[in-house]
């Protein structure tokens, strides 16, 4: 009797404690949600502003927009969100199994197969890069676990972006470039550089050809085969392949390193008949702790965090000056290589030419031959431009994603005789970018 009573009171104690622990938990999470000052306003790693508190109007109340807005605001800016996101990835990293072999793999994203790549652009074809099958490139072995997340493939602590060829966008690119060349015919020579992404170059051999990522060399060959014969194609694929065991692409970010860009610069120099500066002539600066787009796109997976990138930047010797024009039309002078030591971990790639701006000019006072080049690029071009400073008096840089004017107009106005287009192969499958590229011609 006595024992039974004690037992039931013991049970009763736990029952009450359980109710209390539940109430307390709910109270804690709701109070945290109430601390407005703790709420983040923007996410640096997602590169976006977080949802704001919605406006209260009769219309928004009636349509329900206010309530949707409230829900997004409440959860989007919940205090400690970034930490919770990383924790969520950490938990999910235990969802899989480690296989007996050294390469355990994981997928966490929508991989879309690319279109079949025709051998040649119809009707005429100019192939500048031959097949690489007979080449002897360095071997890259996978070590560590590999996983593939989203359209991002992760091998151990290194990530690669899936590439799916789009024939329609490739054709758009070809026709835009041909149209531009016709417009500039007699005024300027057009150089075209298509940069492979890391999945086409530095992906470990055991995955090359096995995963649903399109063949980049074939894609580049196809595009080149469609380009007007007046366009000088800068064939950098094989060059990068021959340096594939070097640190030419970041592990946590989709960009190439400046070393990779340097090899491409040498190829351009060869094609344009200028002298490439040796690398050891540059002053080297390093920015460590870079966790780029792959880290953020995969939801901050711990594997990548354990292996942050270091950006090695090569400073031009010349006392060149750079002025960029931002989206609001403001002109701002900025160092060509900026010190990003104190920048957030996710945006350190912006150390090169102030990141992505609609229009930028660099002038090198040590050269006075009137030489000018225009570089039309997306962000891959940022790492290459600083090398050109030693070769040209005037560099005009246009980021076609943000530029709203006409490139051919600028070429005429500034009397530019060399135009270099730099695009990573992945940009040439994006309909929005191809539309913008065409609009800036």
């Amino acid at each position, binding site marked *: 009797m006595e024992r039974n009573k004690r037992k039931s009171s013991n049970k009763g104690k736990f029952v009450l404690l359980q109710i209390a622990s539940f109430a307390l938990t709910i109270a804690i999470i*709701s109070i945290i949600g109430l601390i407005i000052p703790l709420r983040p306003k923007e996410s640096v790693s997602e590169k976006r502003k977080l949802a704001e508190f919605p406006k209260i109007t009769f219309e928004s109340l009636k349509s329900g927009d206010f309530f949707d807005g409230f829900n997004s605001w409440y959860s989007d800016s919940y205090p400690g969100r970034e930490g919770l996101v990383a924790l969520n990835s950490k938990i999910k990293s235990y969802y899989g199994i480690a*296989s007996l072999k050294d390469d355990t793999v994981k997928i966490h994203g929508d991989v879309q197969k690319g279109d079949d790549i025709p051998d040649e652009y119809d009707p005429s074809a100019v192939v500048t890069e031959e097949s690489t099958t007979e080449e002897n490139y360095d071997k890259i072995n996978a070590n560590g676990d590999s996983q593939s997340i989203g359209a991002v493939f992760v091998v151990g602590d290194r990530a690669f972006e899936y590439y799916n060829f789009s024939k329609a966008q490739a054709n758009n690119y070809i026709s835009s470039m041909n149209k531009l060349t016709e417009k500039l015919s007699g005024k300027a020579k057009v150089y075209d550089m298509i940069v492979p992404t890391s999945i086409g170059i530095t992906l470990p051999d055991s995955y090359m050809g096995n995963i*649903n990522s399109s063949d980049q060399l074939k894609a580049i060959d196809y595009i080149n085969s469609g380009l007007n014969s007046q366009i000088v194609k800068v064939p950098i694929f094989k060059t990068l392949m021959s340096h594939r065991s070097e640190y030419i692409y970041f592990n946590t970010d989709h960009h190439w390193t400046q070393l990779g860009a340097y090899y491409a610069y040498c190829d351009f120099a060869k094609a344009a008949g200028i002298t490439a500066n040796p690398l050891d002539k540059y002053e080297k600066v390093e920015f460590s702790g870079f966790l780029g787009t792959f880290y953020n796109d995969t939801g901050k997976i711990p594997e990548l965090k354990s292996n942050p990138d270091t950006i090695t930047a090569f400073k031009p010797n010349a006392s060149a000056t750079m002025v960029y024009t931002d989206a609001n039309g403001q002109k701002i002078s900025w160092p060509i290589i900026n010190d990003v030591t104190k920048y957030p971990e996710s945006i350190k790639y912006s150390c090169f030419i102030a990141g992505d701006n609609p229009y930028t000019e660099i002038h090198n006072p040590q050269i006075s031959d009137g030489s000018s080049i225009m570089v039309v690029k997306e962000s891959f071009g940022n790492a290459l431009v600083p090398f050109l400073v030693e070769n040209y008096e005037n560099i005009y840089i246009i980021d076609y994603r943000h530029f709203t004017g006409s490139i051919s107009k600028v070429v005429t106005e500034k009397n530019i005789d060399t135009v270099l287009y730099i695009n990573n192969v992945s940009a040439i499958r994006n309909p929005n970018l191809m539309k913008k590229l065409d609009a800036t011609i």
Partner: protein
Amino acid sequence: MVFASLNFLCVFFPLCMLAYFFAKNIKQKNTVLLVFSLAFYAWGEPVYILLLLLMSFCDWLLALLIEQHKSKKKLFLIITCIVNLGIIGIFKYGKFTLLNFQGLFGVPEKIPNIILPIGISFYTFQLLSYVIDVYRGDVKAQKKFSIVLLYASLFHQCIAGPIVRYKDIEKQLLKRRPTVNSIHDGINRFCVGLAKKAVIANMCGKLFELFVVSDSLVNTPEAVSVVSQKSAASLWLGVLMFSMQIYLDFSAYSDMAIGMGKMIGLEYKENFDYPYLSRSVSEFWRRWHISLGSFFRDYVYFPLGGNRKGTGRTIFNLFVVWALTGLWHGASWNYVLWGLYFFVFIALEKLFFGKALQKVPVLSNLYLLIIVYFGWILFKFENMSVMGAVLKGMFCLNKNSASDFETVTLLKGNLVFIIVAIIACTPLVSFISKKIKFRNGDNRNFSSAYGVLSVVMPPLLIALSLINIVGSSYNPFLYFQF
């Protein structure tokens, strides 16, 4: 608003419980529940709250009329059916009917875009069952409109069930007092349901999207090309993921509703009983969404004569019930197809091999799982050409491979999770915990350990769910757009 969201867990629920706690008597407590329920509904559908109010009012009035004018009660019942089925017909099936009409006859040219009011299928059925029960004399008509409105709008079940019968909770609506133990059980039920939804069901849904096609595309023609590229293994696994998602998601919602009911002394009937362990299609439907099955049984099948009017009539009655069950799930032909698909098997079981199935345990389990598995394909893909591409792809008829690197990668990367999800679809965990509890019931150390666990579980499950909910809101912009 959905239960597994931050604004529900951190704002709505605590506010509601706090107000409920401070309300002094049942009248005040009911007022708190009603105000919060209407706010809950209005949160998602500010305009359609009027529809809910209107329907509740009509049915409240009609139930009273039926009771007061016994001689004309049949007429009032017919009016009730016309009003309720008419409204759901317009709002849920209006667009579907017009689309089909247009397809056949070319008119009308323009089809108005009618947005489906949330929960209309659930609260209409609740109200309908209330009036019919009054008509049958099973329950007395409620004089107070607010009580009928509370019954129809109660946020626990208004939006996604279970379809509660008025007669089951009539007394509790007017007088209830939760015991400490029922609160304890309610909390457990709620937390388990929350984690089941936020941690497991949502991830199953995400895996379906990765294995098959993303939900934003699934009902568009573009899905065909995406699906056609997927390996056969990928599609098989994807459908498995959806089979688990739909059970875990739906039953988790019922768990949370039942749990919240228990916390305040409302006892709702069970809505799921581990349906995937059934051995026949008939049994499956007695264990899956029980409140819907019993609704059709009590208000359609039995009134039509059930199985008492000969084999031919029984089959016809089953046909009607299953066509309606299919249609209830959505205004699209694939749902009707899905309902009739089950009708075929239930009829076959009734006529031929129902008894034989009971004698072969494992085989009958497999039989049921295979039928339900393919049933979910009919259910999931509203677009018939996407459905066709999936079915073809599962047998490598899209020139697709049996398996590929991505499929294996995805499977390996989530194998532990998938096994956990499969276990979550079975009563294994609750079976083991009951067994242990029973065996060691007298052991003090053990019951202490069990007690400690029960105290630690709610914060743990809520934290896990919170991390998942916030984690899935993580939505990095494509860097190219930046």
